[in-house]
């Protein structure tokens, strides 16, 4: 699991961002006192820094250049300053990315993920996702159960993937639709129903029956 450290002086944003990142599967540390921020970052053993520019003591650029002198830890500037000079400044000084507030949350998460996998290249990225005996293979977009295997379309695959990742709860239809949109698959409610039906058909061909249960008025749940 990757660890992210947040340097942000707005308390509300800091706390909610922490929750968001923890929900996305990261370990999160926040900085609350803004003296010796560089030291704190370097001592925290984090894999990535989310760095605000306007900070009470020294600004983010200063902190970034201090860190760059000794470490290559990825730094993403997160700020509501948004003119091109600020952005250029951030990149010149050694920031890996520059994201404006209010950030688009899926985009923020995607950028964090990209930078982490680019920097660490540990094959921590999952290839297989398992639920009971059912295995989703991300590389060739297939679902397999025991010996049998079935190809899925990108949409079908993503839906099943999301359901498996959230198998501990009832997943509302709208959650699935939003997740698909975050992955550039712009489906609507009807298309979702069609795809669920298709997934069920394909699953039954590999002898998986009644995996996806419809909870009327609430959504879907894996059984």
């Amino acid at each position, binding site marked *: 699991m990757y660890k992210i450290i947040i340097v942000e002086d707005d308390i509300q*944003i800091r706390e*909610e961002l922490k929750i968001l990142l923890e929900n996305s599967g990261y370990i999160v540390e926040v900085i609350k006192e803004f003296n010796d921020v560089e030291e704190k970052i370097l001592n925290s053993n984090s894999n990535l820094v989310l760095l605000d520019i306007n900070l009470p003591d020294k600004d983010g650029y200063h902190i970034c250049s201090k860190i760059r002198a000794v470490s290559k830890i990825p730094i993403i500037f997160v700020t509501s300053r948004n003119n091109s000079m600020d952005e250029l400044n951030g990149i010149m000084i050694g920031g890996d990315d520059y994201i404006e507030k*209010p950030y688009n949350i899926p985009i923020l998460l995607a950028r964090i993920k990209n930078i982490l996998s680019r920097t660490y290249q540990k094959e921590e990225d999952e290839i297989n996702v398992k639920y009971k005996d059912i295995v989703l293979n991300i590389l060739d977009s297939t679902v397999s159960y025991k010996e049998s295997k079935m190809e899925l379309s990108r949409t079908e695959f993503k839906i099943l993937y999301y359901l498996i990742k959230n198998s501990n709860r009832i997943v509302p239809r709208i959650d699935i639709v939003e997740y698909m949109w975050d992955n550039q698959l712009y489906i609507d409610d009807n298309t979702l129903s069609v795809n669920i039906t298709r997934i069920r058909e394909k699953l039954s061909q590999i002898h998986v029956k009644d995996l996806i249960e419809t909870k009327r008025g609430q959504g879907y749940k894996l059984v």
Partner: protein
Amino acid sequence: MSLVKYIKDKILYILVYEIYCLFMVLYLDAINVGTSEIILITAITTFIAVFIMFLNYNKKNRIIKELKQTIDKLDEKYLIGEIMKKPSNCELLEYYKILKLANKSMLDKIAQSQRKQKEYKEYIESWVHEIKLPITSIDLYCNNNRNNITRKIIEENAKINNYVEQALFYARLDSVSNDYMIKKTSLNECVNNVISKNKNALIQNKIKIEIEDLDIKVYTDEKWLEFILNQIVINSIKYKSNSNGPIISIYQMENKENVCLYIKDNGIGIKSSEINRVFEKGFTGTNGRRNIKSTGIGLFLCKKLCDELGLVIQIESSESEYTIVKIIIPKYEYIR
């Protein structure tokens, strides 16, 4: 300054001179000066008077001509007081002093209003910067606690954010040229970011998105292009038709020099009588009046920013059928 007008101005002097001549002739005649002497004296006096008047005219005319030429060459004509030569003539000197004074007070006023404008612009920028913090935290709160109400709040929050962005771009209009950064930009990414920004509104309004192969890179300012596309997509959502299932399709066509990006919707469209005016500032049209949320700023800003970036924006529509916005983006070799 024509001679005739000058003479008309001096008519009082001439009249006084005539009367003086008349009295002089009468007087000379009374003291028995000979007729030929009287004629000679009168002729000489008149000659001298006319000569002086002519010299005077010539001099003033020359000064004024010079001044006219100088002001013609000036871009900012109000600066004439600063660069005109100081006249030696005492009458003109008074005018000169008055002009200087008037000029100085004008320059002070201009400087003052420029300073005010700059302060105001800086205030708007810092205000935008400040208000983005609560917008961000509202968005985070809602995303961490998703339900039907927070989804609505996210949608409204996105509207607030767009109005704030509009204010920022509007405030920067005069100084835009020093705030863009041309770089290699993925059209696909830009479009998907804009869709993502409007995700909640699009899903809530059951709008279908069709994106065709946009796998192309252009050289432009990413932030500006996204802002422009965002205005267009927001318009498509605002003016969707209620009768048929709303669709927004985005596609591109490419030729040797340009990439043309098309954003097409099947919304209520624009009247052909109004289509030429949609880029005007504050123009709301029939649709805007029917839909009170229109401000007439979005497309105005689009046009301004496109002009600045060297893009061409065109709009085509058929009422209650469709609207197509076309943005022509030159490939980088052709950027001015």
